[in-house]
């Protein structure tokens, strides 16, 4: 049985090799011509199909790796653009939605509403979800490329930028990603156990929105958090937390702060929390003024910071008062250890000034002057980083897959040719920035590249018969005893999470253990529809 897909896969590979050679000269005309199929209506689609939907007899077989926003937006667009395409979405976790589930803060339920839209895509009869399948270990990139006409990599950024300063590995220093996964119940960080006890101060390095999320979770009242879908283990630890003060450290100034106004306004509005900005940090240089003129968002963030600096909130008495301090123009130079060397005791910061050529972003340059802040917990929130997988070109410096409008390039060198039928989207394509909606525009670009290549015959697989697609993948995974979590299975897990949550007055209680997820997924439903 497994032979069949392998034989077919070899065929695809040979066809691809050929196409890649000839593609530059555009010798190949698409074999599958556009034909009006007529009457094929999507039952799931509550908005009209794009008028530009491509109809072709073959039915493009597409595999999307990663079920975050980039993966789902790509799937949605492929289904709209190709009327008969079949899309399989893989994820290494049993649960879908990527950072919408494991990144977006628990106190932002409105942001997670987008999973409704993604779910409508997933239940389309032309879309299948393959949860619990890891690219790189359960199935290789080469195998996927043999099984499908098109493979789109959307597996995000699941590692972290390094600071490169002494003490980074000390106990009590965590990447913000780990801390976020911990409070969001991601199965990989259930046992993080951040130290919220040994000091009343936590330092967060970086001033992006992730840094603000971490600060908010550390400082928000646990009564409020208890009504969110925050992981129970985190809530228990946060209830006992001694942390009352969070210092957010930025290497540049308030005009360059990476957070957005919405997040800043929100944290400034939290009851019992005073947000402090040192007035001396607010001075503006001519270059700052230029930057603000060019960016509405930075200007509005700066104005909010000025407001925070000016507000004279009553001094809090007792232990209830909580404080968020923005510290600008400080670059982390070292993470300091306790006397016994066992754990973190503070951070050493170098003062900076900004320098830069005209029309270029200003850079922070050290002044050689240092200061120290004591703390018991350090969160490094200086950006995520993608992870390479075998057989994939990777730009290790930037931490992403080199690409041209979503087409994966053969090397990082400029002018490199691309790999037929292999695409990339989302954080893996652009690096770890942008909100959920950015991935929508990004998916548009990648899917347009797929359409162009399909039209010009550049996908490389069109000259042979229909690839094995889902069926081939299923056979392969069964052979390897990998238990696939389907979207229906996920709905069972979701129902269980909602039921667990309602016992506690939470919208859901996330199940944090993979084995438990798998066992619920495989339970035979007692109710038949």
């Amino acid at each position, binding site marked *: 049985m497994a032979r069949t897909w392998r034989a077919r896969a070899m065929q695809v590979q040979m066809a691809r090799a050929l196409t890649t050679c000839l593609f530059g000269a555009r010798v190949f005309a698409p074999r599958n011509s556009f034909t009006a199929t007529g009457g094929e209506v999507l*039952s*799931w689609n*509550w*908005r*009209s199909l*794009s008028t530009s939907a491509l109809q072709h007899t073959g039915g493009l077989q597409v595999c999307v790796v990663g079920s975050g926003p980039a993966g789902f937006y790509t799937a949605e667009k492929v289904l709209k653009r190709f009327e008969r395409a079949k899309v399989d979405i893989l994820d290494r976790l049993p649960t879908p939605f990527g950072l919408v589930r494991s990144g977006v803060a628990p106190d*932002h*339920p*409105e*942001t*997670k*509403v*987008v*999973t*409704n*839209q993604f*779910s*409508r895509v997933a*239940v*389309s*009869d032309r879309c299948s979800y393959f949860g619990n399948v890891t690219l790189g270990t359960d199935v290789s990139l080469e195998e996927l490329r043999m099984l499908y006409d098109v493979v789109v990599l959307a597996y995000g950024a699941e590692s972290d930028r390094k600071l490169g300063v002494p003490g980074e590995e000390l106990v009590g220093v965590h990447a913000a990603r780990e801390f976020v996964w911990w409070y969001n119940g991601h199965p990989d960080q259930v046992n993080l156990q951040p130290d919220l006890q040994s000091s009343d101060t936590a330092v967060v390095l970086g001033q992006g929105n992730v840094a603000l999320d971490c600060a908010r979770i550390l400082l928000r009242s646990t009564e409020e958090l208890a009504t969110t879908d925050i992981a129970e283990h985190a809530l228990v630890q946060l209830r006992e937390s001694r942390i009352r003060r969070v210092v957010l450290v930025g290497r540049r100034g308030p005009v360059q702060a*990476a957070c*957005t*106004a*919405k997040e800043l*306004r929100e944290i400034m509005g939290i009851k019992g929390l005073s947000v402090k900005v040192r007035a001396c940090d607010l001075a503006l240089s001519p270059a700052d003024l230029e930057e603000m*003129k060019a*960016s*509405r*968002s*930075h200007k*509005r963030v700066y104005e909010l910071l000025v407001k925070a600096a000016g507000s004279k909130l009553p001094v809090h008495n007792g232990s209830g008062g909580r404080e968020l301090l923005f510290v600008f123009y400080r670059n982390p130079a070292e993470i300091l250890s306790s006397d016994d060397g066992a754990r973190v005791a503070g951070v050493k910061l170098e003062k900076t000034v900004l320098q830069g050529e005209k029309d270029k972003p200003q850079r922070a340059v050290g002044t050689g002057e240092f200061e120290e802040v004591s703390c018991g917990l350090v969160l490094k929130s200086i950006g995520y980083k993608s992870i390479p997988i075998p057989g994939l070109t990777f730009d290790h410096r930037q931490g992403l897959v080199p690409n041209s*409008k979503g087409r994966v390039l053969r090397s990082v060198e400029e002018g490199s040719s691309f790999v037929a039928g292999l695409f990339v989207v989302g954080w893996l394509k*652009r690096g770890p*920035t*942008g*909100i*959920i*909606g*950015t991935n*929508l*525009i*990004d998916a*548009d*670009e990648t899917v347009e590249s797929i359409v162009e290549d399909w039209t010009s015959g550049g996908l490389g697989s069109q000259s042979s018969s229909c690839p094995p697609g889902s069926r081939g993948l299923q056979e392969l995974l069964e052979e390897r005893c990998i238990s696939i979590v389907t*979207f*229906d299975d996920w*709905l*069972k897990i*979701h*129902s269980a999470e*909602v*039921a667990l*949550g*309602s016992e506690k007055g939470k*919208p859901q209680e996330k199940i944090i253990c993979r084995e438990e997820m798998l066992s619920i997924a495989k339970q035979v*439903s007692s*109710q*038949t*529809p």
Partner: protein
Amino acid sequence: MRGLRVATGLAARLLQHGRVAELRTGSVGIFRSLVCNNPSATYDSSLNSRVSDTCGFSSRVSIQGSSCAPRHEPGFVSNVSLGASGEIVEPNKFILSYLGSSQLFPPGRSNGFSTSAAATPEADAEKISVTFVNKDGEETEIKVPVGMSMLEAAHENDIELEGACEGSLACSTCHVIITDEELYNKLPEPTDEENDMLDLAFGLTETSRLGCQVIAKPELDGLRLALPAATRNFAVDGHVPKPH
């Protein structure tokens, strides 16, 4: 009480058809009242309340009182009474029950759920004419009842306007450009919260607004809304092509 538990297969099936469903209070005696925890949006059984996309993947639903609140008033459903006895159920159970009942009332039959505005008293309400211009420059003119948001109107008329957060002012994907400055000036000023989201909108212009925050009113008759053209250079945070 029926439909309080839902088989997953059912959920999937509802989703295939699922979209905005109108809840007509009392019409079949299933939903008696909805109470929203947003104090400015309280609903009682005398109102027709609209719940959009309660597809069961989030406890969050956007509620809009069609006869009282002229804007989207998102909030959590804090309690819902169900059934003739008016029992109060948890929000999530409400969603589950909604999914469950859908099988009893498949879309297309008006058993308390309907999927078109025509089935509601709103059909008689005053309407204005609005033209959407899509990315390719194609125009679609629709009639929008006064009080309805442009996001909802677009979706009711199968116009492709994204709305990732379904009108909760948390995403900026419903960005529209108002092509006529005079009409732009007739809109109430954007709130700070709307401006915060506009900061992140792709392809921001001087007359950009969020579609979920633009509500039809008589003065806006003839409104033209353009969707920002897709370019290959999309904005990342903090970088917008044109200052507002």
